[in-house]
């Protein structure tokens, strides 16, 4: 079997169910692949791992991938299992926020960094809010690992994913009625999330291209299986979680939320989505995430080969 290493963007959870399902259900075996899945973590930059040769393919968000590309690391999107964005800003209703346009000024907002801050910065830019604090701007708090800043009322809003942190807030005892959410998708600043990326030079090697195609095919099969069998997928994720910290309830709910995001995708990158992402990022004002239109940042070669 051919060896292939996949670097995840984050810890083992249903966000990456497709890959785990593909492995445990033998879909990779069917394609004669031996896939190693490396979980990520808060301070692992998947792009760096790829550059260091620690992995062949990585799951990454497009803003980070494009930023890395501008930094000289030639990442190419070879597949896009996530069609829609699950990121949103979740606020306490009692903080008095109802309209981003008018109510954010002077508030403290929790944001993820380490490559995940780009969509937020773009959004604030379109809202014309400074991120340096003060009366007319927002105070940005580098959100740590959990939803505590909201529960402790250290921030008016925090970043959440529909499938994960939002659920944790509910688990903590707050109800949807206590909260106001703003999806990036609805604010017109949605950027593409979990996609599969590899280094440009891999695409010059026909053998590698073939391997990647088989990988994408099996992975997508895994995703579709997971969408249809959320409980079983959650079970598989749980089996693969080495920390033993995840619970079946949490993962099942995550899986069903994730299914909504992967639903519209067969793995092929939608050019329109790509274009919208690039435009959002380019609109970064004084400090745009990327300064010029990227070239060759994606390819259909793999998905075409895999799916036809």
């Amino acid at each position, binding site marked *: 079997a051919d060896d292939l290493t996949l670097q995840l963007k984050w810890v083992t959870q249903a966000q990456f169910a497709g890959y785990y399902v593909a492995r445990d259900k033998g879909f990779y075996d069917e394609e004669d692949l031996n896939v190693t899945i490396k979980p990520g973590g*808060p*301070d692992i*930059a998947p*792009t*760096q791992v790829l*550059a*260091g040769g620690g992995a062949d393919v990585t799951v990454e968000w497009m803003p*980070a991938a494009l*930023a*890395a590309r501008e*930094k*000289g*690391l030639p990442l190419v999107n070879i597949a896009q299992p996530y069609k829609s964005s699950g990121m949103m800003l979740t606020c306490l209703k009692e903080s008095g926020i109802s309209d981003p346009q008018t109510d954010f000024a002077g508030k403290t907002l929790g944001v993820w*960094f*380490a*490559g*995940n*801050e780009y969509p937020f910065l773009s959004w604030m830019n379109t809202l014309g809010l400074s*991120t340096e604090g003060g009366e007319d701007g927002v*105070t*940005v*708090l*580098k*959100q*740590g*690992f*959990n939803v*505590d*800043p909201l529960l*402790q009322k*250290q921030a008016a809003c925090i970043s959440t994913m529909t499938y994960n942190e939002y659920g944790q807030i509910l688990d903590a005892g707050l109800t949807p009625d206590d909260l106001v959410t703003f999806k990036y998708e609805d604010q017109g600043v949605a950027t593409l999330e979990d996609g599969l990326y590899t280094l440009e030079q891999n695409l010059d090697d026909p053998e590698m291209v073939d391997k990647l195609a088989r990988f994408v095919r099996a992975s997508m099969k895994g995703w579709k299986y997971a969408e249809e069998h959320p409980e079983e997928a959650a079970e598989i994720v749980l089996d693969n979680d080495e920390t033993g910290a995840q619970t079946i309830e949490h993962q099942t709910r995550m899986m069903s939320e994730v299914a909504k995001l992967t639903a519209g995708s067969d793995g092929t990158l939608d050019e329109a989505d790509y274009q919208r992402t690039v435009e959002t990022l380019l609109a970064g004002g004084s400090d745009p995430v990327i300064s010029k239109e990227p070239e060759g940042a994606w390819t259909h070669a793999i998905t075409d080969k895999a799916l036809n």
Partner: protein
Amino acid sequence: MNGVAWQIFRRELRPTLLVAPFLIFAAIMTPALTPIVLVWLGAWTLNIALTSLDLPFSRVLTPIIFGATILLLWEMACRIFEIPPVILPPPSRIAVSFTQNTSILWTDFVQTILKGALTGWMIGATAAIVTAVAIDRSPFLQRGLLPIGNFVAALPIVGIAPILVMWFGFDWQSKAAVVVVMVFFPILVNMVAGLAATDAMQRDQMATWAAPYWQSLWKLRMPAAMPFLFNGLKITSTLALIGAIVAEFFGSPTKGMGFRISTAVGRLDLPLVWAEILVAAIAGSLFYGIVALIEKKVTFWHPSQRK
């Protein structure tokens, strides 16, 4: 070079001559290594010659040459082996990034080191000294508190950091709190040992003079404790920086060295990461150096400082 120096030089060179054949063998096997090996051997021989001469400035010069050699080797390795800069940038690029980002580095320095580390260190040290004096009078408290203190000191701070960030907010106050927790017990343990470090004869003298408690504290135990106290202060000076930076990984405003490092890694701006590390190393060494200097002034009488 006079005779004595030449003799010392020959003696000190001996271990190097033992290692040299291996290095040269390695260079022959991997020709790319040749310049690295040559530079290393040359610089090292120069250093040995310098220390053998024992000139007044060689104490300062040798570590500088040693450091410069390492930087040079680093630069050469990066170029010869074409290490991708997103993995390990060469020193030259780090230097460029350093000069380009001075204002960011300064903001981060103020936030993390001056506000977080220094404040926390001072609060922690003061609290530890006061506590030490307080429990110095009570053998009961000492016996009860110190074993538990040792246990708490063994708690990995990285575990306390998220909790303290949760308690004290995301700004520098929580970083200072982490530093306080980190430095408190090492200083306490040292200070308690120091206050007890008077010898029996000195205590007996105080007794024959019928010295009251505060007199014997100020005039005997405090001065006698100073070498111990500074031992603790020195150890914790580097701990404080690490603590403040680590705590920023668990939540911070959008400035600070820990914040910048994790953000910059995400953006693959490795030269900036290393520039921050450089600032941390310089600040840490400086901090340590200043404490050591004060120690020299305060404990001038201690045998280790006399020479």
